């Protein structure tokens, strides 16, 4: 086996492991047959549908990950109720806007994770990411005035900081805490 292909195998290993875990959870049995078939399916999937490599080294810090999960859960709950209330109270006259929010990182992974989490939270989703200008464009519901816009930006910034603390490389974390953003 050559050097490159060995590295490829190693890079795919976490994906294969995760697929096997899902497979076992779905079957809910820990027999050799279940494990063997799980590995076979996982390897086949990874070979047939290879994902592009993540070029940066991915770090995950467990404690910030907990903080991030708690914040996202809280944010999703609060804003689900807010969007529901907007639907009942304002309906067709709800005000919406697209707000530019500064990116706090240039790295692929934190940018993508923060964008999906922003989109997961009710009331906001990312319409576009402009990496040249370093901005997310966030569509937000219920933004009647400047204070609502400021709140969208504050939430996005807090979320990005948490994401960077969880997944960001060391330098990126430093810039995140140093840069104020808008």
């Amino acid at each position, binding site marked *: 086996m050559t050097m490159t292909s060995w590295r490829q195998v190693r890079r795919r290993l976490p994906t294969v492991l995760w697929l096997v875990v*899902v497979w076992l*959870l*779905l079957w*809910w049995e820990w027999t050799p047959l279940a494990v063997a078939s799980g590995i076979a399916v996982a390897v086949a999937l990874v070979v047939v549908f290879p994902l592009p490599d993540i070029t940066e080294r991915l770090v995950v810090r467990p404690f910030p990950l907990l903080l991030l999960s708690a914040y996202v859960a809280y944010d*999703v*709950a609060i*804003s*689900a*109720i807010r*969007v*529901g*209330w*907007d*639907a*009942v109270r304002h*309906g*067709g*006259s*709800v*005000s*919406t*806007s*697209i*707000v*530019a929010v500064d990116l706090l990182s240039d790295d692929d992974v934190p940018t993508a994770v923060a*964008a*999906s*989490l922003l*989109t*997961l*939270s*009710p*009331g*906001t*989703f*990312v*319409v*576009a990411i*402009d990496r040249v*200008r370093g*901005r997310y*464009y966030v*569509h937000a*519901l219920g*933004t*009647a005035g400047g204070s609502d*816009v400021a709140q969208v930006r504050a939430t996005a910034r807090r979320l990005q900081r948490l994401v960077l603390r969880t997944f960001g490389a060391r330098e990126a974390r430093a810039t995140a805490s140093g840069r104020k953003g808008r």
Partner: protein
Amino acid sequence: MTDVISAVLLIGGGLIGVAGALGVVRFPDVMSRVQAATKPQTFGLLLILAGAAVRLDVKTATGLGLVALFQVITAPVLAQVLGRTAYRTGHVVGLSRDDLARDNHEHSEPQA
């Protein structure tokens, strides 16, 4: 006790689902409707799954946990793709502020 917890979660999830559905009908444009269709529904579903999981054995509850996980992973992708498509094809009504259009406009100005 589990009855009470599960009842609160199930009814809460159902109510939030109804509010989301109401948003789909009442909100003014595609982008807002996508918001109403994907987000409160996700949270409502999570509550309902939690409410059901409380009453079930570990095996089934784990399955529901996987449902929740994949819902959380896939819902933002759907929202993003639909929302961006709606924006790019001009299905936008009454934005009170549009930084994206403003910045793109600035960008396309000739540099004199």
